[in-house]
């Protein structure tokens, strides 16, 4: 037999002509990418190894960026509506006409009554700019999507400990020994979490997944707690009960770093009942047993009492810790009392509490690193409690979510596992207490600017956005007694309120990258009706709608004027420390996008469009004294705008020569320097400052130096949240501003300054017999909301979504493979295909989020499975609770923050014999971009 000659193979083929380093945009994780260019086309996208976020890895969406960028659904030119709203009939117009149209709609609004513009942005990565623009315009009606996304998580974190999970912080992946993850499918920090889990697995650390559904991250967890939706608060408080009972909390940590020692006014008659007893300088007081007197909390060398009754200037007080311990000692928090409701066995709750205690205290870790705290006390080492936690919308997107998130943070703090080695750590600019955030602003004059940033953290009723008559000043009714601490606004209420004219009517609605007529809304069908509804004069009830999207989404069809955006590879962008940056627990970092590919269509980056439109409207800050446009485009703004002297959108390469970090004058070469540096800037936190950041002198100094704050601002964690008590006092009839009567009881009940659990609202209202099941959605790792479906590669993975039904329900209803079901809530019904899943809480059904599509959208063909078999759960979820018969509109939201309660949904299921198509089937929209091609063979020219 002749020897076989293997074919000659070129094992070193050319990959690309050039690598351009920028930032991914396929989700909010914002990984660094190396875009390989060949013949001026994108050949390959890989993770940037040097990048702080992803360190070289890339998710499915990131790798599918090629198909996203060359999507057939890309908009090509500004569009003016010519048909009816929702039909998708448009005429292409020139940019000049588009901008002048927008100006002609907006200028009168600004001159007369700026609040008649509602400007809401979706998954916006330029909020510090869009919000500033809205501020300059003078409208109080601005927010991004946070209110329906995860504000419970964010706000509970800020109020409790000055930062939350996700981009606010991360577990110490290299050191933690036990990790519990609550209600997370994918999260914003998606690559880092996967990398972290990988590290834990490589080290053999224990991972516990608390989630009704055992998929994704929960699938690889060593232990699965298949909790009943909406009951995490109870489960957590039961563990707190156990830990306190056994004395397994970090007393030293609580004593030094938390308000466990603050004295709380116990005089029921006082207007300050339940508030902290403060000294003359306004500092909260603690009891110093050594001197037997009340002293300021930050007094050096004090070891304050944590229990006992003390009287300060005649006011009776008790330390927070005693109140806390007494509260959770109650047998209603005992594992035996909560087990059934949570669907978690008594043994499991007890064992997990014990495992946490064991790992935190018996396996404590010590890092040989001296440090000094803000009271001047020197510590010769750093003690770590190697248990860590992460949570997201599974606990957040419930009407009891704020308190549940608080409960989890309290658990972390009791274990002493925040900001210590092996625990959870913040990412700069966090930690940042409430005091370092502005309160909300909502006041402007016609033709003027708003008095400050829209979104902030209220300290009490005095910060509510109410006019003299107690009416809501904002269209979304954020910062009203209905949801006083709605720190991210309530985007999910905007269309509904604008349609109802409650609290008032608006003239122009401007939206940016939010698919509000579809997957982004609760009650999608209703929202489409509101957007197309006309008044008695035949005018649309919501008069004018300007929308910016990059693709032919469902929302485009409802716009009167469409401003087509570029793709993420075609524009400048900054991921700014003023906004939601890409920092890591060990470093501050920010990054940019830049046009690595030139647009081949008549489209413009939306931020650049705002720069232009702002100048046309004569907005101060965007206009020169002579009335001319101040910044040429967004890139110009990024480099030259200053928020505070020396502090601008980008922190790297500041100063005329680009050699200053954090603070410094604008640098005309800044973007180029970012490009040369791989698209990002990073500044590492000194070793001494790596842990205990809120109290660590070295960290505070570093933060001031790089411009995160202007002065050091050490603070203590707030186990007891005083602002909540202030709202409660109002409800109790104390203080100047008080809630309307119908809201008093709920504020008294739910604004407990110590975490509590209560039954989610929808569950309180609907009959468990009629709607016995919980219905949830999860994000698929390989899809980003609705955008993924235009991606030829990704849509093959998730082109349709079944309803996953627990084995228990499956058996009960006698379902068989290939069956369909009707799923009904109090609000509506959908018909969907079902699939059995046993690794699922027995009373739960779920599906992948946002796979269902409206026919005609996304350049898909009419027979695409996304619209034939795919479906949206949103049709079953209403933005309002079922009417209670009191004539009020009660939002389906958390009573504290207004967070949309997506996961409170209760449903019932029955077989749908003979069904072959998902329902409701919304009539098709016309596509302004045509349909995608039949065949794709990307890369033909190179192979």
């Amino acid at each position, binding site marked *: 037999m002749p020897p076989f000659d293997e074919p000659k193979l070129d094992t070193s083929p050319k990959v690309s002509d050039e690598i351009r380093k920028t930032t991914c945009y396929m989700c909010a994780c914002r990984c660094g990418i190396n875009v390989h260019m060949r013949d001026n086309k994108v050949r390959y996208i890989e*993770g940037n190894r040097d990048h702080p976020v992803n360190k070289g890895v890339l998710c*499915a969406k990131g790798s599918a960026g090629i198909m996203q960028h060359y999507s057939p659904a890309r908009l090509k030119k500004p569009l003016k509506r010519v048909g009816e709203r929702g039909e998708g009939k448009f005429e292409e117009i020139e940019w000049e006409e588009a901008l002048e149209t927008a100006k002609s709609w907006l200028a009168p609004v600004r001159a007369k009554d700026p609040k008649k513009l509602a400007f809401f942005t979706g998954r916006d990565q330029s909020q510090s700019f869009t919000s500033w623009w809205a501020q300059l315009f003078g409208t109080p009606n601005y927010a991004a999507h946070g209110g329906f996304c995860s504000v419970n998580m964010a706000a509970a974190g800020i109020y409790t400990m000055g930062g939350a999970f996700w981009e606010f912080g991360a577990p110490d992946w290299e050191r933690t020994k036990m990790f519990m993850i609550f209600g997370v499918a994918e999260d914003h920090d998606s690559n880092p979490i996967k990398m972290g889990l990988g590290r834990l697995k490589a080290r053999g650390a224990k991972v516990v997944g608390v989630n009704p559904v*055992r998929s994704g991250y929960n699938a690889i967890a060593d232990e699965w707690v298949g909790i009943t939706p909406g009951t995490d608060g109870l489960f957590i408080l039961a563990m707190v009960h156990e830990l306190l009972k056994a004395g397994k909390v970090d007393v030293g940590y609580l004593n030094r770093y938390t308000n466990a020692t603050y004295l709380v006014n116990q005089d029921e008659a006082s207007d300050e009942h339940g508030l902290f007893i403060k000294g003359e300088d306004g500092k909260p007081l603690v009891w110093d047993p050594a001197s037997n007197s009340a002293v300021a909390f930050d007094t050096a060398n004090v070891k304050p009492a944590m229990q006992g009754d003390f009287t300060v200037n005649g006011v009776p007080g008790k330390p927070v810790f005693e109140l806390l311990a007494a509260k959770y000692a109650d047998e209603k928090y005992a594992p035996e009392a909560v087990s059934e409701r949570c669907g978690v066995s008594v043994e499991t709750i007890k064992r997990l509490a014990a495992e946490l205690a064991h790992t935190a205290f018996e396996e404590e870790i010590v890092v040989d690193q001296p440090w000094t705290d803000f009271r001047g006390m020197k510590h010769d080492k750093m003690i770590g409690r190697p248990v860590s936690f992460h949570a997201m919308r599974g606990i957040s997107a419930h009407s009891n979510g704020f308190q549940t998130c608080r409960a989890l943070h309290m658990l972390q703090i009791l274990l002493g596992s925040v900001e210590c080695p092996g625990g959870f750590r913040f990412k700069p600019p966090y930690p940042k207490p409430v005091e370092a955030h502005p309160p909300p602003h909502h006041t402007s004059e016609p033709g003027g600017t708003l008095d400050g940033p829209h979104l902030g953290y209220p300290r009490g009723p005095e910060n509510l956005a109410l006019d003299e008559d107690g009416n809501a000043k904002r269209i979304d009714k954020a910062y009203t007694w209905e949801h006083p601490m709605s720190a991210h606004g309530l985007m999910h209420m905007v269309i509904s309120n604008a349609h109802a004219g409650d609290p008032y009517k608006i003239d122009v609605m401007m939206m940016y990258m939010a698919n509000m007529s579809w997957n982004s809304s609760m009650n999608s069908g209703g929202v489409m009706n509101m957007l197309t509804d006309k008044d008695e004069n035949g005018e649309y009830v919501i008069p004018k709608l300007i929308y910016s999207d990059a693709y032919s989404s469902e929302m485009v069809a409802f716009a009167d004027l469409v401003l087509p955006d570029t793709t993420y590879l075609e524009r400048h962008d900054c991921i700014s420390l003023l906004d939601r940056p890409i920092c890591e627990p060990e470093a501050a970092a920010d990054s940019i996008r830049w046009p690595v590919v030139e647009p081949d269509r008549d489209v413009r980056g939306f931020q650049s469009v705002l720069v232009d439109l702002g100048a046309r409207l004569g907005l101060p800050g965007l206009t020169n004294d002579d009335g001319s446009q101040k910044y040429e485009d967004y890139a110009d703004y990024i480099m030259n705008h200053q928020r505070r002297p020396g502090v601008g959108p980008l922190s790297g390469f500041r100063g005329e020569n680009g050699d200053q970090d954090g603070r410094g004058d604008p640098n005309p070469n800044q973007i180029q320097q970012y490009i040369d540096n791989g698209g990002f800037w990073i500044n590492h936190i000194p070793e001494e400052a790596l842990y205990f950041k809120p109290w660590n002198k070295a960290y505070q100094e570093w933060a001031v130096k790089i411009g995160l704050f202007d002065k050091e601002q050490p603070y203590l964690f707030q186990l007891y949240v005083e602002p909540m008590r202030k709202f409660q006092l109002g409800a109790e009839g104390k203080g100047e501003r008080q809630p309307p009567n119908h809201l008093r009881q709920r504020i008294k009940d739910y604004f407990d300054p110590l975490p509590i659990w209560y039954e989610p609202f929808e569950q309180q209202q609907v009959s468990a017999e009629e709607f016995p099941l919980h219905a949830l959605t999860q994000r698929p790792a390989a899809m980003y909301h609705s955008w993924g479906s235009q991606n*030829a*590669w990704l849509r093959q993975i998730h082109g349709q979504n079944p309803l996953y039904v627990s084995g228990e329900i499956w058996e009960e209803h006698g379902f068989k493979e290939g069956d369909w079901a009707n799923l009904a809530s109090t609000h509506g019904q959908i018909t969907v295909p079902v699939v059995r899943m046993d690794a699922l809480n027995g009373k739960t059904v779920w599906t992948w989020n946002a796979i269902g599509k409206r026919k005609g959208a996304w350049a898909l063909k009419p027979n695409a499975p996304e619209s034939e078999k795919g479906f949206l759960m949103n049709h079953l979820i209403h933005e309002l609770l079922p009417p209670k018969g009191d004539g009020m509109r009660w939002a389906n939201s958390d009573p504290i923050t207004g967070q949309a309660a997506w996961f409170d949904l209760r449903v019932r299921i029955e077989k749908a014999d003979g069904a072959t198509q998902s329902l409701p089937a919304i009539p098709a929209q016309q596509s302004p971009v045509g349909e995608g091609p039949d065949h794709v063979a990307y890369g033909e020219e190179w192979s």
Partner: protein
Amino acid sequence: MTTLPACGDVKLGLVIDLDTCVGCHACVISCKEWNTGGYGAPLSDQNAYGADTVGTFLNRIHTFEVQPEDAPAQVIHFPKSCLHCEDAPCVTVCPTGASYKRAEDGIVLVNEDDCIGCGLCAWACPYGAREMDQAEGVMKKCTLCVDRIYNENIPEEDRVPSCVRTCPAGARHFGDLGDANSDVSKLVAERGGMDLMPEQGTKPVNKYLPPRPKDVAAAGEPFNLAALAEPETKGFLGWLDKALEKI
């Protein structure tokens, strides 16, 4: 030539950790984008924006549910690409010699210039690792990124398969399974790496690391709070003063 070469010492392959894979499909798409403009014909997609889209992929993730007798069901994500078998039936069945196994590193490849697209090799593969490209009519399969791992145009640290480089969880490992001292071989030894369908006698080079036992309480450890609690606790806060003294 479709007879198998005498196996060399080098057996390059992947080790896939089923305990770590979160099923994110990152490797699937990274593989597609690397290969679609790389080795051989592009990986085409038919009906790309309509119904019954059929695209060529060299790596896919299955998701299985496993029901133990007395514990909650588990979900296990299961990546699958060519296992570069030592006794590769896909090679010996090929009538044209297009399918071959490289003597120097054991990589199984298709020389597309010789492939008539008969599909027999795909029938012969037990693992579903070969897919015929519908546009070009040639057989496609995982190349183990042979055009990356030796590629002098890319930095040395990146000379690993695209799927390995991208995997966010680090569930994919690449190396020489013929070398008992390589990291991958050690991992296989440590974690009890498995062959898929051993009964087929293909002797896969790629190994799968089994999921670690789940939902089992760590035995023998004092995970009992009562045992951890201070002995002389009196009342709910009885321990507090003592604890405070200690700090």
